[in-house]
Every structure is written in C-alpha cells, then in structure tokens.
C-alpha cells in the first residue's frame, strides 16, 4: 500500500518536473502579454469591453439600415427614450440608438484605419531613416519636421472642403497625412540604437542586403514598441476624429459618428434638456478611449521586462 503510494508520488513529482520544464521554455510575446492582461484586472475588463463593443457595433450596423436610421421623420422630433426609440430621437426625428451604433462603427473604423496607415508610413519612414543615418536621415527628418509645423486642423478643414467625394477612406487618408510623424520619430530613435548592435553588423558581414537587415533583423526587434505605440495611438485617433466631427469637419451630418452626435450639444437646449442625444455618445467615447489606453498600458508593461507585474 505504502509502496504504491510512493510510486504514485514519484510519478507525480516527475510529471510536475516535466511541466516545470515546459514552463521554463521562454514564453512567446503573446503569452507574456496575455499573462500581463490576466494579472491586471482593469486591463482585462477593458479588453473584454472593447472587444464586446467592437463586435456589437459592427454586428448591429450590418443589421441596421443606414438609410432607415438617417431618414428624417418630422412626426418624431426630440422624442425621449421609449420602447420604440431606445435612446430617443434628434431634431430630425432620427433614432439615436441606430445612429450611435453606426456612428461608433464609423469612429472605430476611422480609428483603426488611421492607426494602421499612419503606423505603416511612420514605421517605414522611421526605420529607413534611423538605419541608414547620415544624409538620408537628415533629409527624411526634415520632411518630418515640415509636416510637423503644418497647422493640422486648418489643413484638414481645407481638405474636407475641397475633396469632392468624401468617405471613410478619404477622411482617413487626410488624417493619416498629419499623424504619422510621431511614430516615425519614435521608430527612428529606436532603429538608430538597434543598428549599432553587433547583430546588425554581423548580418552585413554574412552578406545580407540592407533591405533584408531592416525588415528581417531590425524590425522584429522593435515590434513591441510598434504594437504599444499603435495601441495608444488608436485611442488618440478615435478622440481626434470625434473632435473634428464635433467641429463639423469630420463626417457630414448624414454619416453619423460619435463626434457628430456630440456636436448636437452646440444647441444649448439640447445640452441642458435632451441628454439622451449626446450623453451616450460622450460616455462611449470616454469608455472606449479609457479601455484602449488600459490595454495599451498593459502592453507597454509586457514589452518591458522591468515593468511587468506578472
């Protein structure tokens, strides 16, 4: 009996040891991030919330008919929330709930698109500039400086006025044109550091071309920085879009976004008495930006071993 027990104990110990060995294998980047998220409950809740909102919003706007939602209905102006209109209606009698769904979808889509586009441009610009250094770096950074001194809002207003066919794509491109410089600068400084390391020089001696070294050796070493910056930029870009739409230089009024819903507050009576029009959008912007930021902060910590909590 006791012998059997020892046998079992030994087997158990061996199994544990094997598991430990598995554990010792260095965890992949994704695993590290996942552990960090699990440890940070706020980030976990934020991630779930963000994914949920994204799925719901994109799903709902597939079902909802945009023409139906944005159709003016003079008999239902300024209806407070009821069974028929879940979040009431605006001055055109349009359903706020439907607008909120489609609007959040549009805002998120813009946020993703702008982040992705500015990310790609910024990373390529920065990594090329930092890797080659010298005159190339000098020239490219002057281009960055040029874009930096341009008055962002003024030019967006001008572009919005002169672009005839105005859609999510054109709006993202206009925003991207003024939002890639930050990433470019950040990536450049990191690439400057990386290229001095021996492994980049070793790659040269082994006959790799500059393009190969940039994209296969240096870039993988700065991915964590790229992911972190782009996540934090996503929150900022959603905010910028809302701000522009609020000012009336984002989407046209018939294309709802979180910003256009907010811009109804320019009417003081709406601001004071018809809370259902703007409050949901305002709360949603706040929550979305906070949750993206929380996830971004967790990512940031996961990328730096000294800051990790898990």
């Amino acid at each position, binding site marked *: 009996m006791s012998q059997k027990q020892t046998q079992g104990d030994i087997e158990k110990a061996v199994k544990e040891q094997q598991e430990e060995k598995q554990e010792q294998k*260095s965890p992949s980047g994704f695993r590290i991030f996942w552990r960090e998220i699990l440890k940070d409950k706020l980030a976990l809740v934020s991630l779930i919330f963000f994914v949920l909102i994204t799925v719901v919003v994109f799903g709902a706007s597939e079902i909802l008919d945009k023409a139906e939602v944005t159709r003016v209905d003079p008999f239902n102006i300024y209806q407070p929330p009821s069974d028929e209109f879940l979040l009431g209606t605006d001055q055109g009698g349009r359903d706020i709930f439907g607008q909120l769904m489609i609007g959040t979808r549009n805002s998120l889509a813009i946020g993703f698109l702008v982040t992705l586009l500015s990310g790609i441009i910024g990373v390529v610009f920065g990594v090329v500039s930092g890797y080659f250094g010298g005159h190339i770096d000098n020239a490219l950074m002057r281009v960055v400086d040029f874009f930096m001194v341009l008055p962002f809002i003024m030019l967006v207003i001008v572009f919005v006025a002169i672009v005839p066919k105005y859609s999510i794509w054109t709006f993202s491109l206009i925003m991207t044109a003024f939002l890639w410089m930050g990433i470019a600068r950040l990536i450049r400084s990191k690439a400057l550091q990386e290229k001095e*390391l*021996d*492994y980049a*020089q*070793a*790659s*040269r*001696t*082994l*006959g*790799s071309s500059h393009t*190969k070294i940039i994209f296969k*050796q240096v870039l*993988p*070493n700065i991915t964590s920085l790229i992911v972190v910056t782009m996540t934090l930029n996503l929150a900022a870009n959603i905010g910028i879009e809302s701000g522009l739409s609020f000012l009336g230089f984002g989407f046209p009024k018939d294309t709802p976004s979180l910003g256009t819903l907010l811009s109804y507050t320019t009417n003081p009576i709406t601001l004071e008495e018809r809370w259902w029009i703007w409050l949901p959008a305002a709360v949603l912007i706040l929550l979305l930006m906070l949750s993206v930021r929380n996830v971004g902060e967790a990512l940031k910590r996961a990328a730096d071993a000294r800051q990790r909590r898990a």
Partner: protein
Amino acid sequence: MTLLKVNDLKVHFPIRGGILNRKIDAIRAVDGVNFEIRQGETYGLVGESGSGKTTTGKAVMGLNNITDGEIYFENELLNKGSKVNIRRDIQMIFQDPYSSLNPRKRVFDIIAEPIRNYEKLSKQEEKRRVQELLSQVGLSPESILKYPHEFSGGQRQRIGVARAIALKPKLIIMDEPVSALDVSVQAQVLNFMQELQEELNLTYLFISHDLGVVKHMCDRIGIMYNGRYVEEGTKEEIFNDPQHIYTKRLVAAIPDIDPKRRQDNFKFREQVKDEFTNSYNDYFDEDGLAYQLKPITDTHRVALPERG
C-alpha cells in the same frame, strides 16, 4: 603565400562643428597601417583600447569606410575608393556574444542566414547543413529551435563561430572573441578555435588586448598604439626581444602567477615605467605618434626614430 595585404590603411572619423557643420578635424583611428597575413597563420593585433585595432579589423571586413589605402585579398584589390567589398571568404567573429546574435531569431535562422544569402539550398539540405555546423562547434543538433538567450556565453560564441564558418571562409577576423567570456570558458573556446583552424585550414586575424591569450594563439603579432604600428614580429621576437618601449611595457605587464617573484616583478615594472616616461620623446614624435617601422630582422619591424 600572402592571403591579406593591407597597404597604408587610414581610417579617419570626421569631427564636425562650427558653422554649417563642416568637417573641422578628424580622429585618426587608424593612421597608416601596413601588414600582411599569410595563409594558415594566426596574426595577432594587439593594443590598448582606442588604439585602432578593432577599426582595422572592421575596415578589412568592410564595415567601415576607409579614408585611404589599399586592402588586397588573394592579390585582388578589395576596396574601390573608400568602400570595401564584403566577401564571403572573409568572416568575422564579434566580441560580444550577447549582442551579436539577434535575440528574436532561432539558432536555425541565425546560422542559416549566410547560407540563404549565398547558396540556394532546399529546406531539408539547409537544416542538415545547420545541424552539421552545430555539431562541428560542439553543440547539440537539437538546439536549432532554441533562442540565443537559452545558451551560455561560451555556447553563444560557438553559435557565432558556426555562423562564421558556414560559408567555408578563408580568413576569419576575430574581434576580441573571448574578452566577454569567463576565464574558464576562454581556454575552451580558444582551443576549439585552434582545432577548427587545423581542420578547415583557416587563417585568423586575432584582435585582442590580452597578451596571455595572444601568446597562446598567435604566430605573428603586431602592436598598435594611437592608430599606428609600433612593432611587428613573430611571437618569440615580441615576447623575448621587445624593441620598442611601448612593447616592453606591455610585455612587462603580463601577470606572473609565482608569488615569490612578486617583489621582483613589481620592481621590474617600476623600472620599465620609468624608462617609458623618460624615453617617451625618443620613441614617439611631438604628436605622440609612433615613427615609421624599420626592419631589424626579416620578420621583426620596429617604429624607431631616424637617428642622425
């Protein structure tokens, strides 16, 4: 047979400043260096930090632009103006095994990199080559899927060696290959490199500041100071019959393990130091640079001033 010939090599780094960031001066990291390396030998390049030995090595490798001079490899001119061609026959082993391996790459990708660049092999052949190379440097062929941080310093340096010999080069430049390693591992790696040299008929350019290691490894030695050669000769000539005061001081600085001779060694070093300070102006010109090398014997050259 001469494998590598370096002729009046100069590498100057500009110092910029003043209005419009003009070049106002230059750091003469390497300032007129001549040497030859014969097929199959180990040539030691010795000097203190900042003496230009690593810059010389990198210039031969093609990692630095050179200011002036010629580099011949197998009687073929390597440099066109300031650009030095990178050749598969010349490979380099880096000083720091921690930064010379890309932390994001598996051992397989690290060692396969040169093979992928120069040879078209199928995935299977490539894998077999990498495994062969790994066992050649004494690592288990199973480790191809590991990442560099899973290895110790000595093992990492072996991965660096495997990568360098993957293309069957003729000359390997070793830039202080063991100075980042434990003393216990140093001997292991050095002996292994000597075995490898015989096995593959390699020629080494061995850059180091550690005279004990140089004595163990090298056939001929060049001593550098402030970007110039002060003395060049065979191992015996340098260690038994140093002519230049700087070489004398270097050789005197080699530690001795016999505690009984401690006092004597101390006195000897003091004496050499006094000689160095007193005769500094005889051995170096007014800028603190070494004179042109003059042959003493067929193999021994020393930087001595012209005496009238």
